[in-house]
């Protein structure tokens, strides 16, 4: 299992479009993926779950990856969030 802590950097936060991009990226990997925000844990491959976080800019998320391709999954997701979902 890998754990990473990331910060949402794009201005609009984790709204619908980035949430879709996030679950689509996560769906490419076999590894299980959960996101925790303020002790609220959701499945990172579920669009409704990711939207429920309502993560604004500056909020901190804990990502956990577990599975055969957890390294690659973590790299891809952390990169996507760090890029601000190519938004701003």
């Amino acid at each position: 299992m890998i754990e990473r802590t990331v910060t949402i950097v794009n201005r609009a936060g984790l709204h619908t479009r980035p949430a879709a991009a996030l679950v689509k990226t996560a769906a490419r990997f076999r590894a299980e993926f959960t996101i925790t925000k303020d002790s609220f844990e959701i499945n990172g491959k579920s669009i409704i779950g990711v939207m429920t976080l309502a993560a604004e800019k500056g909020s901190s998320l804990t990502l956990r990856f577990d599975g055969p391709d957890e390294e690659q999954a973590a790299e891809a997701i952390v990169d996507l969030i760090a890029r601000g979902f190519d938004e701003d």
Partner: protein
Amino acid sequence: MKLDPSSETRKRSISVGSLFEATKDRFKLTQLNGANGFANEIKDKNLHRPGLALAGYVGLFTYDRLQIMGNTEIRYLKSLDPEQRRNAFTTLLEFQIPCIVLTNGNLLDANLLEAASAKAIPIFGTEFSTTKISYFLADFLDDQFAPQVVVHGSLVDVYGVGVLVAGRSGIGKSEIALDLVERGHRLVADDVVMITRKGEGILIGAGTDLVKHFMEVRGLGLIDVRSMFGIRAIRYQKRVEIIVELEEWKENEDYTRTGLDDSTVTILDVEMPLVKLPIFPGKNVTVITEVISLNYLLKHYGYDAAKVLAKRLEGMIEHKGQGNRAINYFEHDFE
């Protein structure tokens, strides 16, 4: 999505005879002269009123269109003396006119009708006004000259929405159509759907006159949905409103997760909403097809669920909220 554009067809012309046979009852047309011109061809869906040609100006006279003579033309002819009237009218007859329709129950002098007969130009009369018959004829001709395409798929009326189920051969289109029929929806055509563009931006689908509501069920053979399920299970035509394309689940295909990114497919230059539906064993495609129809209706009536939730989320991010329990206090309700 593959819709072979080379299969698009349209009529180049229709004969005056077939126009008359198809419309005489609906448009109350009667033939006023004995002209033998039913083989004359109409090649243009537009109509023409030959007022200027009657007055002697024949530049740009679109004689090859169906000619409509209303009160204006008839009154103009009546205002002339018999000699002039004959000359004016025979000016028209110099051209290869397919046929002439007199509106408002107007008539022409017998000698003029005969002159038209001699040139094999049928003259029809109708009691409808010029505006009305022009609308009727233009609509009929528009339909006759409309572009058509044959699509491999199943067209079903699901809750009043025309859903065209497409996808490769053998993926189960007919079975889904059958399942939808079983659940009370109406089959328009299976396997061979003829789609016609009506007006601008409207596609109407129908089956062929041979096949109608027969379909093939793999492993069983041919069945007739109409005799099996009755009249409630079929309809003859339906506007096509959504295309649902079935395909095997593909690992790397980019399926929508929100429904905000609308995809479309172009059929006969009309952009249609497209839903790419990945299927796998155990997935109830019929119910999903019903949901697609219902969601289309909701959107049509102004409620787009994806947009509503997206907007709610934006509001929550702005106010730094979080997805809390929908009920903030469970009172004593331990049912």
